[in-house]
């Protein structure tokens, strides 16, 4: 197990290096000049700025410095807000995105497992059809439409009740989080519902369910104790990759609901060509996702002892 974890971490580090390199190459291909802003800058100041950001050195040297700083976890100083470190920006905005993401993942997992189990329980009856129809709708409608509709729904509810039940946009309280998290989790919820349904149906055909029935166990006990517990396992595996979908899908929800998350900040940074922020955010997100997937794989090994992780290396 320890060997496995070490191997996974090593390959994870190589992956992060690859992400950092790809980001560096991509960033250096971007046309435009990050130091060229509205204010006129004299050549002396410009030279000073270039020195401060290390832009006066040849590109390979810049790359080595960049890698060294990345290894130390130092992402440099923002180009547009020259008194702010990128680390501080990430530290300020990432928790917002992460909170939203975790809440969305919670909604998605809880909803997906519940709905999926329901469709399997009422297979080929109307609850199955209704839920599967909604699932198809959720998969087909773009997230920004749901975000807009969610906002509209809040607005109309507030109008109808005459009180401000939930805030329409912004961040701070739990009330701000509920609808954006629901919208963000919707696509994943649909996906998990499908997965849960097929997993439940697969388990329903197994020998141990037949044995349990033959033993005369109560249907509810079979459903909860045997079918549901075993069907959840495949759903847990995709939670890792789902984190990726949810955190990057956060852009739209953060934009529409005016949530000060890292996704919205990234879009801003791209528009302003803030090199260090773009590179820092990309590498940070990449590393986060890689570690997340590794963590889920390891946890999965503990949950299901039947999986021999040591054999699935590669």
């Amino acid at each position, binding site marked *: 197990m320890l060997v496995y974890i070490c191997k996974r971490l090593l390959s994870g580090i*190589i*992956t992060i290096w*690859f*992400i950092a390199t*790809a*980001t560096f190459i*991509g*960033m250096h*291909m*971007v*046309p435009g000049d990050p130091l060229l802003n509205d204010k006129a800058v004299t050549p002396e100041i410009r030279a000073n700025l270039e020195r401060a950001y290390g832009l006066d050195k040849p590109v390979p040297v810049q790359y080595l410095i960049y890698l060294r700083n990345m290894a130390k976890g130092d992402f440099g100083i923002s180009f547009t807000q020259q008194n702010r470190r990128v680390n501080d920006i990430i530290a300020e905005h990432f928790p917002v995105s992460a909170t939203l993401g975790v809440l969305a993942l919670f909604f998605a997992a809880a909803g997906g497992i519940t709905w999926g189990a329901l469709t399997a329980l009422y297979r080929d009856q109307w609850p199955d059809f209704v839920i599967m129809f909604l699932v*198809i*709708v959720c*998969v*087909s*409608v*773009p*997230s*920004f*439409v749901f975000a*807009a509709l969610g906002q*509209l729904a809040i*607005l109309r509810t507030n109008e109808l009740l005459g009180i401000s039940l939930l805030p329409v946009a912004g961040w701070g309280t739990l009330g701000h989080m509920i609808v954006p998290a629901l919208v963000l989790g919707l696509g994943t919820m649909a996906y998990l519902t*499908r997965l849960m*349904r*097929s997993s439940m*149906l697969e388990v329903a055909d197994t020998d141990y369910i037949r044995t349990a029935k033959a033993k005369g166990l109560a249907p509810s006990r079979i459903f909860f104790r045997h079918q549901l517990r075993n069907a959840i396992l495949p759903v847990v595996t995709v939670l890792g990759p789902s984190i*990726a979908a949810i955190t*990057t*899908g956060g*852009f*739209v929800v953060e*934009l*529409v609901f005016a949530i000060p998350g890292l996704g919205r900040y*990234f*879009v801003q940074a*791209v*528009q302003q*060509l803030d090199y260090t922020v*773009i590179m820092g*955010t*990309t590498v940070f*997100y*990449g590393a986060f*996702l*890689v570690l997340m997937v590794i963590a889920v794989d390891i946890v999965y090994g503990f949950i299901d002892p039947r999986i021999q992780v040591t054999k699935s290396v590669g």
Partner: protein
Amino acid sequence: MKTTYIPVAEDFQPLGEAVDAERIDRPSLSYWQDVSRRLRSNTRATISLYMVVALVLFTVAGPWLWRVDPALQDLEQISQAPNLGRFALIIADKEPLTEVTARQISQPAGSTSTAPQRLRVLGTAHSEGVTIAWDGVAGASGYQLYRHELEPSGINDLGLPLDQLRASKLSYQDRLGLETRRYYYSVVALFDGAEEDSFASLPVDVEQAIRLSEAHFRGLVDDASDSSLIGSKIRLEVHPFGTDYLGRDMLARLMWGARTSLFIGLVAPLLYVAIGLAYGGLAGYSGGRTDNLMMRFADFVIALPFLLFMILFKIAFGLGPGESGVGPMLLALILLSWPATARLVRGQVLQIREEAYIAAARLMGASAPYLVARHMLPNVMGVLLVSLTFAIPTAIFIEAFLSFIGMGVVPPTPSWGSMCNDGIRTMLSHPHELIFPAVFISMTVLAFNLLGDGLRDAMDARMRSDS
């Protein structure tokens, strides 16, 4: 009576060879014929197939039939709801300014009300200008005008302050961004510069109007100097899906936007599936070290945070002046998406490579190109086609998503995503600007998803999505 049958020579003819005894009555079906039969028996897949055909027709033939410039801005008709040609009142190019001043009318003596009386419209209220007039209030130092889109509920709910007038003026011409709808005009008298508590309010329905020269310029009337036309009504351009915030025809934009969205949605998956096929096929066929190295690289590319790199590459590939941004987006999409197909193909090839029929073909002396062309490719094709149909909606989504956050197609090139982005700003007042592009995206994605499901079920019973 007993008759005995006497055999004759003809009874002893040879029967001939029984060649047809084991003949199978029905024509044998090839794999693809079987797939198409199964697909056609699937109602959902059939409907989605028709939807795809309809969409392609809409995209390809649409702009031929509906010859409206998607970039033409009609500032007379901004954010109009879907219509079949609205009527407009023709007005003279230069209308004389009608004004009412305090000197012209007699002050009603002894009136105790501080609210202006007899609030009325002078002439016709049309989209080029609304003139309202009222009777003066004795002793007022001036008047404050308001315009509201809803009926005012009280003195604090009069809407947009339009202007403050001196006491000598008893009329006002409003020309501020008038739309063809009902407005509520309110007038409050001012005493020593302070507003009174009472107000007079008047609902005014604004009519669409067009100046004669403008109507001539658009080819709606023949003669620009024919003043007998003034006051008559004329049918404006038809906008079956309404217009957007710049007065551009939504139907034309949807059609041209479909070209952008479907172009990216179809071409990008085709290209990256082809690249993935070559890469994965090569890796799987070579096996061993080469395979290991190649797939490691593919794993790295998969690990890149997709949307962040989409945005990064999109800007990295640059944008010259006058470009639409479709090219960089296509390139970025291809660069980031091929590994999934490569993995899929490699897995398939590894599996097929061990099949007995490959060994048999090898034994019979088949060359490597023959093996690949005759056995590998056709067997990979099914899985590939399914992944292609699922890749199309994903690509359409990504285009819409990027255009929505302003990182995609550059204006004025229409795309469904950028139309949604424009529409979401006016979502409350003019919902059709968001609804139409959103519905088109959803229907397209839905059609391709259902088609993909149907294809998967038809290709291989083992891969069924349900049951």
